[in-house]
């Protein structure tokens, strides 16, 4: 709806249910008596104030909403249809300056704060917003009958991941869209498996359902973008019989700004941003992309991380550069990185106090990713805890040093890997294994980040899926407002 134009001259917006508005009624009379053109809009009682004319009934709050009236009384000066000055509440010097009339309200106190405008009253504002801004929303509207439960409806229509969702009403979606500067109709990605263009609005709808706050939306949008790239290959990750799903690691100031957890229990329950951002991505893939478990999602087991698997890197406590910087972004840039993974699984080492010993511990467990006899096929994300990172930091090991040491420790003799070796038929073809050492991970397939609570001499492995161009690659997108 287009904002209604205000008449030139002075405009006052008032309501009867406001002591300050009642206080300034004589002042409005003084302004009119001095021949200044004055129009009064009243929010609650079209007869108020009895002495003022012309008086315009704004009980529908069309003028108040569109001209962003937050306080009554508000006095505006309009020239050629454009607002050039505004004052809120009663302030004699401000009213005198704006009305170019002096003295004004000589018998009144010099100042009185105003009251809340009905157009911003929380009891009205959502309804008003839908009435006046609802046309921004293009998604199909579904009217529920009086006896239909909105949460049950979401289940019946197949919109949920098995947990209840927040009903995506137009008011909630409009509020969600406040979280981004992007236009609601901007297409941000093509979502597999059905290859459906997804708009900011559709992401916002699913973010509402997931339980996100508006300030999380830019992270969700970046995650959707990253997921829907050839490099990340969400299509394959969804369809596979394997356990994995997208694991989100958030870097940069946005993580702190929206209250993400990078510390105690960061991969567990309890933090709204961690829990709902990962969930929102999964709901987009399900609802927009058509990726339904048991349909095109053929996972043998799946995993709890397919509800949500999202945490922030602990950058402040890390001895190393953050993942985002390794991925080529400037320090201080907010990013979300997607890794195709599942888990976590634990590496316990409470004894090692030298980096050499601890690296061997980590390598021993990393060797078992997917299978101790399979190499170069699947990646991993090693999440080093503060107590383990401390050991490396004390010895001056950089992240690059740790990775180089792990790479060296994870060169495995082919004789241990061949099919049949160790009495295990699984393994790699003898022709490939024979007479050489092979790396557990190919270049770029082992990511290292720092997170977790300050107590616990454990680190975490998030095991990966098919890595590299054949499968899914760690993919990072910048979070933009």
């Amino acid at each position, binding site marked *: 709806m287009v904002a209604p134009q205000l008449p030139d001259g002075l405009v006052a917006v008032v309501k009867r249910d406001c002591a300050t508005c009642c206080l300034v009624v004589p002042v409005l009379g003084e302004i009119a008596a001095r021949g200044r053109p004055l129009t009064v809009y009243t929010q609650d009682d079209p007869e108020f104030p009895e002495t003022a004319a012309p008086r315009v009934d704004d009980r529908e709050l069309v003028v108040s909403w569109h001209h962003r009236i937050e306080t009554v009384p508000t006095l505006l000066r309009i020239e050629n249809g454009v607002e050039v000055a505004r004052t809120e509440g009663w302030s004699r010097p401000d009213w005198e300056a704006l009305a170019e009339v002096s003295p004004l309200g000589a018998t009144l106190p010099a100042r009185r704060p105003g009251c809340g405008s009905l157009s911003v009253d929380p009891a009205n504002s959502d309804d008003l917003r839908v009435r006046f801004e609802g046309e921004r*929303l293009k*998604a*199909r*509207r*579904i*009217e*529920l*009958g*009086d006896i*239909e439960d*909105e949460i049950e*409806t*979401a289940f019946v229509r197949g*919109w949920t991941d098995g947990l209840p969702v927040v*009903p*995506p*009403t*137009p008011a909630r*979606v409009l509020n969600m869209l406040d979280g981004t500067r992007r236009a609601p109709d901007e297409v941000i990605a093509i*979502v597999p498996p*059905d290859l*459906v263009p*997804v708009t900011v*609005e*559709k992401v916002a*709808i*699913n973010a509402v*359902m997931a339980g996100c706050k508006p300030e999380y939306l830019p992270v969700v949008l970046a995650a959707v973008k990253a997921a829907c790239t050839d490099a990340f*290959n969400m*299509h*394959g*990750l969804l369809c*596979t*019989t394997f356990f994995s799903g997208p694991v989100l690691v958030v870097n940069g100031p946005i993580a702190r700004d929206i209250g993400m957890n990078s510390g105690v229990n960061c991969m567990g329950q309890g933090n709204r941003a961690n829990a709902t951002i990962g969930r929102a991505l999964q*709901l987009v893939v399900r*609802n*927009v*992309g*058509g990726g339904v478990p048991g349909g095109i999602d053929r996972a043998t087991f799946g995993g709890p991380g397919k509800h949500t698997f999202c945490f922030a890197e602990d950058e402040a406590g890390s001895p190393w550069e953050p993942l985002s910087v390794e991925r080529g972004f400037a320090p201080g840039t907010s990013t979300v990185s997607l890794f195709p993974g599942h888990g976590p699984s634990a590496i316990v080492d409470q004894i090692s106090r030298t980096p050499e010993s601890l690296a061997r511990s980590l390598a021993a467990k990393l060797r078992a990713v997917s299978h101790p006899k399979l190499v170069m096929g699947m990646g991993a994300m090693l999440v080093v805890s503060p107590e383990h990172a401390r050991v490396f930091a004390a010895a001056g090991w950089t992240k690059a040093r740790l990775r180089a040491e792990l790479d060296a420790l994870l060169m495995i003799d082919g004789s241990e890997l061949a099919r049949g070796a160790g009495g295990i038929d699984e393994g790699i073809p003898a022709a490939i294994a024979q007479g050489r050492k092979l790396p557990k991970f190919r270049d770029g397939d082992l990511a290292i980040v720092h997170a977790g609570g300050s107590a616990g001499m454990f680190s975490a492995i998030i095991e990966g899926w*098919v890595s590299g*161009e*054949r*499968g*899914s690659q760690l993919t990072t997108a910048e979070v933009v407002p």
Partner: protein
Amino acid sequence: MTTTLLDPTGERRSVERPAASRLPALAGKTVAVLDISKPRGDVFLDRMAELLAARGATVRRYTKPTFTKPAPIDLRRRIAEECDGVIEGLAD
């Protein structure tokens, strides 16, 4: 009070396409055998190729670059142009 919800889906309906007509017989036909690059898929497909050849079909072998991604459109077009039918090993 009536509640309005916004549709979170892609608001699309899949297009219904009729299945291609079945081959009445294999003799004299060219049949594609598409390996999706899964381990040991070749074991199954080698045998399929033998059996198809024994029934008088000409077998052409194709391979997807990776099992994790849909077959590239060029590969799909080539198979459609060069063959009368296709057998695809879909899983392990």
